[in-house]
């Protein structure tokens, strides 16, 4: 059944990955379109009107796109891959991606650049003329002039090829396609390399239509920091900014979690771990996705009931093929009386769970419409915060929810009406019939608001109509009276009604998933496993291993009670424990003495040998080995301050 399981797991995994891929593609669409526009503009101006006076007088700068991508460097790879793909499809086959670690000097940069460009030339060409391009890299002179002659030759070749069969592929590019050089991590390049490259290429911009793209993680100020004015004046820099990674995350959560498309769900704690790693540590959307994928793997690996985690249509089939053991598992979770009914009952429960989730998402979105516009956002501004709050426990029992309702009762009419309209839209978007009544009710509220408005207009008109002083005074007095007695106006009454209705919806539909039967099938909730995998603490782990070897080795003999040092522990553990008691400088002789005492403690019978001053050679050797292992691990280092002493490098519990 393992194979069976892996198949099922793959199905879910594949679906999610497909969806993610689509999201990623759509996300940077706008940015990439802008960039492509810039690139196609960049050199065409010069090609079209070279004769004009301004063009002759103007210094020909190198078109440069400063691409600000944010500090989530791990995500950049994907963006650049997408970018170079799009460029190669739409603009030019000649795209080179340079990384700072490959380019410590201008020579390496040129080598890398030419290698990439000339290779992409081979890709474009058919295989037959491979031999003429196969010049070994060492023999090509890595200079701009050889790059130019290469460019001229490929240009000539494509020109002559255009009428032939290759028309389709090359007609997407223009007559003389630009050469795009992408600097992936601008911050890490050295000033000298960049300056030299820009100065050289600016001298040949007429022969080689170069376009630069600077990948910037911090801020575009870095350009001014890296390049002096004499060099930056050779560039025509335009700024492009990608979507912020937080927005990116919101889209992914929206499309991946707040949907009933996928059978697999994550619980509150797990989601919190993933979000915390994102916000606290790396801002990396890629890592978030990897974490999510890990959740899927863990769920199918560790939860026996995950066989039932599938699309709704397959549930019945899966439930029927449940083995006896699996049924037992379900029975353990749920008090279900007899075996025959169990399978049917399970199917029913799973269907309920699915419906519950569908409804949950819709009402969550409605609630978010309200909470996201309250002052100070007591339930969070983002829908992910609200989602976590609702998953965690009954949201209507929390203080934040209470204060949200308080604030909602003070909303003004226009806001309230637009919110209700939004809610109606959300509810109408669902395919199910569950919310037909609800949306009817909301629409009813809306018409009531409309009526109120009409009435107030009417009353104002009436007020204006009654020109005689007596009547006017009377009505004004009435108005005043009604305010003083704190009698609620019709609007206020209606507002209360609306808020109460929303509250009832929340209580009905936003029940935490943990309260539902069989939630274990689709919800992954073991956050500790995830934390262990994703937020590793090497120092703590090392300390635990050395201080308490039983934790990892599971050997009963090592189980120490109350901080004592067992002589059965590995040598390095003994040495480590002894060194914890020392100060900054450790006397090696004392340490050896203590070590030998601990080790010898077991061999009490032949104590005569131990009584002699001389330490046993074997023990000495073992000690030396333990010490050098500790040095390798970075706990101690040799010190020059005192002879026969080593310096301790770590402090505290870990």
């Amino acid at each position, binding site marked *: 059944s393992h194979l069976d399981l892996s198949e099922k797991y793959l199905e879910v995994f594949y679906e999610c990955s497909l969806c993610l891929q689509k999201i990623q593609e759509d996300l940077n669409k706008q940015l990439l379109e802008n960039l492509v526009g810039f690139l196609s*503009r960049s050199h065409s101006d010069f090609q079209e009107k070279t004769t004009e006076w301004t063009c002759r007088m103007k210094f020909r700068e190198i078109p440069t796109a400063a691409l600000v991508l944010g*500090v989530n460097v791990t995500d950049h790879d994907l963006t650049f891959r997408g970018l170079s793909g799009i460029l190669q499809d739409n603009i030019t086959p000649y795209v080179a991606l340079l990384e700072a670690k490959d380019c410590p000097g201008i020579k390496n940069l040129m080598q890398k650049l030419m290698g990439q460009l000339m290779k992409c030339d081979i890709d474009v060409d058919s295989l037959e003329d491979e031999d003429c391009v196969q010049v070994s890299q060492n023999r090509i002179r890595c200079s701009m002039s050889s790059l130019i002659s290469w460019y001229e030759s490929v240009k000539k070749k494509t020109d002559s090829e255009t009428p032939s069969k290759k028309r389709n592929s090359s007609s997407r590019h223009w007559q003389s396609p630009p050469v795009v050089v992408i600097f992936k991590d601008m911050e890490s390049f050295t000033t000298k390399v960049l300056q030299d490259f820009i100065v050289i290429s600016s001298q040949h911009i007429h022969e080689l239509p170069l376009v630069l793209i600077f990948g910037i993680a911090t801020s575009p100020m870095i350009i001014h920091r890296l390049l002096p004015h004499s060099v930056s004046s050779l560039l025509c820099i335009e700024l492009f900014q990608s979507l912020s990674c937080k927005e990116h995350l919101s889209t992914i959560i929206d499309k991946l979690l707040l949907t009933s498309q996928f059978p697999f769900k994550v619980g509150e704690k797990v989601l919190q771990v993933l979000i915390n790693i994102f916000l606290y540590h790396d801002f990396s959307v890629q890592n978030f996705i990897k974490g999510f994928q890990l959740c899927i793997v863990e769920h199918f690996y560790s939860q026996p009931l995950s066989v039932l985690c599938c699309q709704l249509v397959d549930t019945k089939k899966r439930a029927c093929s449940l083995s006896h053991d699996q049924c037992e598992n379900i029975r353990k979770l749920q008090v279900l009386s007899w075996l025959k009914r169990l399978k049917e009952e399970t199917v029913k429960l799973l269907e309920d769970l699915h419906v519950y989730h569908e409804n949950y998402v819709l009402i969550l979105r409605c609630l978010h419409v309200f909470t996201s516009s309250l002052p100070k956002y007591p339930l969070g501004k983002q829908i992910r915060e609200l989602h976590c709050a609702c998953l965690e426990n009954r949201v209507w029992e929390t203080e934040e929810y209470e204060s949200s309702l308080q604030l909602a009762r003070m909303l003004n009419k226009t806001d309230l009406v637009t919110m209700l309209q939004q809610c109606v839209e959300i509810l109408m978007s669902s395919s199910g019939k569950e919310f037909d009544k609800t949306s009817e009710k909301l629409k009813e509220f809306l018409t009531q608001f409309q009526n109120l408005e009409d009435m107030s207009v009417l009353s104002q008109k009436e007020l204006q109509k009654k020109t005689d002083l007596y009547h006017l005074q009377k009505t004004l007095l009435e108005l005043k009276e009604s305010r003083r007695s704190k009698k609620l106006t019709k609007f206020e009454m209606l507002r209360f009604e609306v808020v109460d209705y929303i509250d009832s919806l929340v209580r009905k539909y936003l029940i935490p998933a943990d309260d539902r039967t069989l939630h274990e099938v689709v919800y992954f909730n073991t956050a500790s496993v995830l934390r262990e995998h994703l937020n*590793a603490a090497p120092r703590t782990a090392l300390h635990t291993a050395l201080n308490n070897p039983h934790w990892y080795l599971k050997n009963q003999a090592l189980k120490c009670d109350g901080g004592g040092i067992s002589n059965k522990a590995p040598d390095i553990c003994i040495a480590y424990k002894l060194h914890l008691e020392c100060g900054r400088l450790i006397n090696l002789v004392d340490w050896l003495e203590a070590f030998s005492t601990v080790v010898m403690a077991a061999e009490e019978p032949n104590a005569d040998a131990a009584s002699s001053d001389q330490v046993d050679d074997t023990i000495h050797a073992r000690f030396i080995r333990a010490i050098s292992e500790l040095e390798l691990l970075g706990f101690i280092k040799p010190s020059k301050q005192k002879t026969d002493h080593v310096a301790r490098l770590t402090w505290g519990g870990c």
Partner: protein
Amino acid sequence: SQHFSNLRQHFSFPSIFIYGHTSSGKTYVMQTLLSTLQLPHVFVNCVEYFTSRLLLEEILIKLQSCSGTEQTSPVRCDSLNDFVRLFKQAVASQELQDQTLYIVLDRAEQLREMEANILPAFLRLQELTDTNVTVVLLSEIVWELFRPNTGCFEPFTIYFPDYSIGHLQKILTQNHPPEYSADFYAAYINILLGVFYMVCRDLKELRHLAALNFAKYCEPVVRGEANERDTRKLWKNIEPHLKKAMQTVYLREISSSQWERLQHDGGEPGQLKGLSAHTHVELPYYSKFLLIAAYLASYNPVRTDKRFFLKHHGKIRKTNFMKKHEKTSNHLLGPKPFPLDRLLAILYSIVDERVAPTANIFSQITSLVTLQLLSMVGQNDQLDGPRYKCTVSLDFIRAVAR
């Protein structure tokens, strides 16, 4: 120009050193001179040919095409010794013996970066090859900065002075657009120089700026609001525009194409934010604290750590608390390096909740180094207690801490 003797078969001075500020016409004069007098020459830019091998090979390749033969074949030249031999061969085969051959090395300051023998050898190439050759070095810096310790042949030095404002005016006016008269353009150049001469004397840049803004200058004339003589009106129109250009397009805050588009659409330059306007950097929660901790570690002396970051730090002796040298602002002295342990200790004390020393925290330090917000001091072993410096400014850290 009398140095370039008309008697071509005479041996000329072995090496000439020409220096002067950026765009004072060194390269242009040399090129025009050599081509109008039809002197055999090789012109090489040393920045472009960044290693000695590339440079020597390039000279030999160019030499092949010197006397008109188009066919060039790849040359292999690994050392200066080879170069001298191949050079002699090339001169003989190209039949250039009977006149002086000129080798011009532009951006010659780059030669100092190459092997130590390259510069002295070029200076006395005539003697080494025993041919009639003169090497001309063009540079922006003075000869004194070239002279090797071991001494060398002293070249003949020529200084190209900067263009005065009058010169610039004359040169720029020469290229007036065909649709407008020279006088009209000269008036424009006058205004342009009035604004830009204080900050920029680079001829190339000035010409670029002149071309960029000329359309705006002509606007009133095109619309018929003023005639070409109406200098005052034209000045009123263009002067604020040029001042804006100085703050934006001249500094490359916005690109020249964006500037032109703005001009074309008649928009205000204020709409477009320059590069410097985007200073905000969004960082993950712990990265922010790490950066702040690093900043504190870099600018606070170690002695004060106890006072600032411990709850029970004991009494502070008020007298002589500040040592004399510490009275100068630490910000003037720049950031000081600090060990990793100190950074983490400060981090633990400035973050409210408990921070576990996870791998993610350590990798964030590395990320900050790659982002150039921190820099590693001394490339020593990671195990040996790495030391860092914080490289961001006070303004930046204020924005982060907010």
